């Protein structure tokens, strides 16, 4: 299996506070990789390096290398807008834009492609179908995206992310604000999507990690303690800390 993303000695700083320490991690292409660990251990921080979203904040800084397809995306020469097309992100809460369901996706498409009207409509439909949302919203494409339920909003955001043909999807606790039934739908969706995309999902929910992921990385206090195939991590962890965490002794 090919490696899609490779973190090499990745460290991260909030001002003078160091949050990540020499993270090394290989992420396989077209697999779901779960990132687990107790609150404040740096899971989200690690993920937020992958699309350089942390750069929006003045005092945040990463060092080391993050290779995507062998290219270090922390290189200032990298076109960050193109990077963010290739690396989509889903957040803890749904983030529909204040526009219609159709526009939410069409807007993202128009940022990156010049498309005739007809094709734009097709691509919007494709994206909504891929996010298994089309049947639920096809009659209300003109309604505000904010009018959908929480689970639908989150799938709308997934549709928006995949509309621009990314290669990687980052999901930062994508179901933490969503009810169990909607959560299940999103988990099923993730299993569908890994056919085409490399997915990295931060989750607090160990059952979720076990259900959806092929590989798991366990973070603790900014260090990657252990990573490997999910089945092995959960049944036969090598590190004592990992075992304590997955058996619920802390965190």
């Amino acid at each position, binding site marked *: 299996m090919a490696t899609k993303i490779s973190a090499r000695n990745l460290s991260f700083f909030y001002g003078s506070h160091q949050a990540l320490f020499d993270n090394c991690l290989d992420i396989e292409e077209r697999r779901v990789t779960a990132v687990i660990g107790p609150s404040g251990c740096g899971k989200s921080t690690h993920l937020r390096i992958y699309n350089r979203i942390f750069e929006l904040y003045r005092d945040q800084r990463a060092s080391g290398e993050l290779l995507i397809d062998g290219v270090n995306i922390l290189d200032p020469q990298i076109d960050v807008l193109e990077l963010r097309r290739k690396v989509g992100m889903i957040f803890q809460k749904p983030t529909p834009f204040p526009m219609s369901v159709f526009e939410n996706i069409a807007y993202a498409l128009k940022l990156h492609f010049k498309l005739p009207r007809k094709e734009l409509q097709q691509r919007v439909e494709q994206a909504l179908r891929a996010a298994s949302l089309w049947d639920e919203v096809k009659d209300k494409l003109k309604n505000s995206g904010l*009018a959908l339920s929480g689970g639908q909003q989150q799938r709308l955001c997934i549709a928006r992310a995949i509309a621009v043909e990314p290669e990687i999807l980052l999901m930062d606790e994508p179901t933490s604000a969503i009810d169990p039934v909607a959560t299940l739908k999103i988990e099923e969706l993730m299993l569908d999507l890994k056919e085409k995309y490399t997915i990295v999902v931060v989750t607090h929910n160990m059952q979720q990690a076990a259900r959806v992921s092929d590989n798991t990385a366990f973070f603790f206090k900014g260090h990657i303690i252990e990573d490997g195939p999910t089945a092995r991590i959960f049944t036969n962890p090598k590190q004592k800390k990992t075992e304590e965490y997955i058996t619920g002794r802390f965190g």
Partner: protein
Amino acid sequence: MITVRTDSIFYWLCLICAALAGLLMLGFFVQLSLSSAATWREFGLGFLFSRDWDPVANHFGALPSIVGTLCTTVIALLIAIPLAFAAALFLVDAPPLIAGVLSHAIDLLAAIPSVIYGMWGLFVLAPIMQAHVQPFMVDVLRLHQLPLLGRYVGEYYNGFGILTAGLILAIMVLPYICAILRDVIRMTPPMLREAAYGIGCTRWETAKDIVLRYGIRGVLGGIFIGLGRALGETMAVLFVIGNLMDMPEDIFSGATTIAATLANNFAEADGLQRSALFALGLVLLLMSFAIQVAAQYYLHATSARRGESRS
């Protein structure tokens, strides 16, 4: 000692104070209507559309003042809104020290008395307009030769007039609009902004398509506050508008506004002219009032629509 009796006095006192605002508003309307009755009898609604203001012939029309008011206000907003938006965007993301100093500087613009703006306009801005800005617009940009819009730019200038007044007004309303836009931008959920950047938006795209749309109600509120202030501003405009009771031909023309007409003419007015000035006052009050009502109605309508779509 507080007794039931004194407490009820306090209650009535509060009630009277609260009612006073409404009573004053009503009082303004009644007084302006009564004092302007002669004008309405003489000219009817034609007063609003007549171009002549001729005290010798005893004929009075409000159109030049109304047009002047609207033109200066529109120019002020056209200049102030983009400036305020750009400044607000910068200030929200700027390093704290710079943001602090510049925010206070912009806020302090609101504390400058309008007569100071007027003096500055008369002695500084108008000469600069005449020596540099207007020649640049006419001789270099040749704006007056533009199709359609060209005739509203004009070819002849002297530093005073609608454009200069609009500029002064723009500076005066800038702090109000900027303060509100700053709040609007700060109220956008960080995650929504990150989502926009995350999909590949630039700063500008995030600002205009996501932040602005998300906070559209606040933005409009800020604009209406600026609008209300620009409509009624008197002193600063008086210094630079040129005070001509004629219909303006273009944005370089000398003109007048309702507020400037009132301030200029009351001293020597009597009879029908005095009544016509009161009528102008009533028009200004109604215009401001209509804008407030329209703003409230619009905000109410958008919030109702959002509420509906959520259920």
